[in-house]
């Protein structure tokens, strides 16, 4: 998710040189292209647990996949008119620049450089991640500040490695990075006690813990040493398409805030007197006009894909293998102390 692979940058630069100001596709809006094609090309990554993974019968599922499904539901009224494009992080931005993908919904950190230099626009954030540390309970450590002199397993050539060094220097902790090329090797080294701690994005730490023969002996430390806001990305200069993707995510967040879920939506649609609910579900007003979608677009998203909280619990929540509890975390609703906040539907 944060590999600063030279290849990616190189390819990104080349692509941006060739294409930044006005992609060839600009004459026709992305929405028209998608509607004419009848299928949404949604880019996800190579499988990452929780966010997008492949089942043994070849189906994609995951937290980021739900964004694709939401967009498809908003446009077609069918959440499965999607061609999933799974590419490695090295080519993710070129696949957007050359028009191969309509939208990128994969753990991609929103940074100023990427937003301004690659001919792309970040729409919004659907998951706030951040780098942290995980240790074995035997170490008796409860804060990253106690990790002075510790050996830390980390993937090489990533911003993770950079953040680790920065953090260690800022706090004069003198941590010893033990670098790995392959995440599986890193994980088995950590499990067998080859390093005191392992560092990665916290969602990544959760999936490392889920692999461990005994999960209960590992603890993710509370410190978050970097900001990794993840969210869907579109090509620059197509604000209608940008809006569709952004508001598809907002619809899910807002639905949770209004207490609408896939199971009670029909009831609420029929009986609610709340004007915002009525506007959002297309009972009143014409909010859909500006997006170029049907009035039921948000209804379809919530009915077919679910609200934000439902999806979180299904793929990330405490009952899943990822086991990243939501209450009180940054990914909770703003009304409960988190950062998930949708602009009003009016």
């Amino acid at each position, binding site marked *: 998710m944060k590999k600063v692979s030279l*290849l990616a940058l190189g*390819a990104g630069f*080349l*692509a941006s040189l*060739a*294409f930044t100001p006005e992609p*060839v*596709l600009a004459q026709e809006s992305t929405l028209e292209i998608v509607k004419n094609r009848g299928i949404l090309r949604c880019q996800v990554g*190579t*499988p*990452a*647990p*929780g966010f997008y*993974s*492949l*089942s*043994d*019968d*070849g189906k994609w599922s995951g937290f980021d996949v739900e964004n694709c499904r939401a967009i498809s539901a908003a446009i077609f009224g069918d959440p499965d008119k999607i*061609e999933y*494009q*799974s*590419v*490695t992080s*090295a*080519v993710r931005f*070129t*696949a957007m*620049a*050359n*028009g*191969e993908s309509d939208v990128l919904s994969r753990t991609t950190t929103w940074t100023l450089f990427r937003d301004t230099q690659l001919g792309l626009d970040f729409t919004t954030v659907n998951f706030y991640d951040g780098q942290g540390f995980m240790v074995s309970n035997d170490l008796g450590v409860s804060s990253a500040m106690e990790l002075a002199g510790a050996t830390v397993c980390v993937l090489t050539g990533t911003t993770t490695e950079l953040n680790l060094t920065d953090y260690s220097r800022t706090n004069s902790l003198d941590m010893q990075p033990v670098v790995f090329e392959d995440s*599986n090797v890193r*994980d088995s080294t950590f499990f067998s006690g080859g390093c005191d701690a392992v560092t990665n994005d916290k969602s990544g730490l959760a*999936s490392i813990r*889920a*692999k*461990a*023969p*005994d999960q209960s002996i590992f603890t993710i430390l509370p410190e978050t040493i970097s900001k990794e806001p993840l969210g869907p990305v579109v090509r620059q200069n197509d604000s209608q398409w940008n809006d569709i993707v952004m508001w598809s995510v907002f619809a899910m967040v807002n639905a949770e805030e209004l207490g609408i879920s896939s199971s009670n939506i029909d009831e609420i649609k029929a009986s609610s007197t709340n004007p915002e609910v009525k506007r959002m579900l297309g009972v009143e007003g014409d909010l859909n006009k500006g997006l170029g979608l049907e009035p039921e677009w948000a209804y379809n998203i919530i009915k077919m894909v679910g609200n934000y909280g439902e999806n979180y619990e299904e*793929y990330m929540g405490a009952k*899943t*293998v*990822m086991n990243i509890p939501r209450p009180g975390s940054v990914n909770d609703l703003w009304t409960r102390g988190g950062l998930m906040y949708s602009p009003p539907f009016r």
Partner: protein
Amino acid sequence: MTDATQSDTAFRPKPSLPPPANTVGAVGWLRKNLFGGPVDTILTVVSLYLVYLIVQFAIEYGIINAIWSADTYRECLDINRGEGACWAGIGVWFNSMMYGRYPDEEQWRVNLGGIILLLWLIPFWLPKITGKIQIGMSAVLTFPFLGAALFLGGEFGIFLHVMASVALTLFAAVWLHVATTYVFGRSLAELLVSATGFAGKDDRLHKYVLLGAFGVGFVLSLVYLGSWDLVEIPTTIWGGLFLTLVISGIGIASALPNGILLALGRRSKMPVIRVFCTAFIELFRSVPLITILFMAVTMMPLFLPVELNPPKLAMVIVAVCIFAAAYMAETVRGGLQAVNKGQYEAAQAMGLNFWKMMALIVMPQALKLMIPNIVGSFMGLMKDTTLVSIIGLYDILLMGKAAGQNPNWLGFHTEPLLFTAMFFFVLCFAMSKYSQHLERTIGGGYGRR
């Protein structure tokens, strides 16, 4: 009496003593090969110990502690704490690793395609069959189209329809040919000619009979293929071993003909051709395959018109073919240089033109010399195709990796790798064995060693 006297006085050697007990039999062999001296003995003991450790680990990991049935990796971990294999996962992911995301109910098409190709190539190994080169060429040149029609399905374009019909006709002809050879002892061509009463006529007329028969078969195939109603399966969901074989198969099949042409071009006296071929070979040989693949799938679409938008797989196959051809060209050129100048001169003295000289005199010798190198390139290419996983084609390797990222199978990564390694070993070892067989049967004069 005299006899007895004679035999008493004549020299009679004593029977030879048996060789010392420690130089014959198992003990002797051991002494000679394994315990010849202190160094040998130490090496033997150490090696045996290493072998013991490996075998012991393999048995413990792969059999004793292995779990054969489970629904998630966690179930395996709960039983063996990760100290044994979780073969149950291979069972769950087997179809994915074989066919990628190709839908279960359509996988028979892939199997059928594989069976057709095998059947097509069987006559190659049957004795008595004539025209093996033509059989091989027909398979290599036309099977890909039949395969594409079968695997892709949907509405095929005119070109694919025609080419697939040609392929089907040739496939039928090959097996009719096998049947007539074994039943009547005559080739299909002879039988057709005599059955239509052209046997007595001028030889030059015979080809019209064959063309006519081909035409009839072609029309029948065209109609038959038109009646196919297969669900379209886009190449984006092809995967697994199937995809690996599609890419490496086409790469391998095209490498030799393209390589030969490039090698001849590079040795040509015509400057334009020579410069072009040399530049082509040097350019693509000096660049890593992964770079070519990146260029093909990410950069090419930037230069092509949007409407064209060829599927990624097609770009990848083109890239692999180019790369393989460039390498093969140098291998073939090595073979050409090994052929004595006298052979060229003799061929020219016979009055053969360039193509005949190459086809009849030079190439057979050059290729024969180069069998180990050619097969080596093929094996390298087959293994290189796993690089397509980097650009997001779900070949057997990436599919195996994807398995370990499924929430239910987190941590399941060693077993898919072992499974993939096994397939590559089987395929490459088979190629290697076949090349040794070829060297023995056609490499005669030069011997191997």
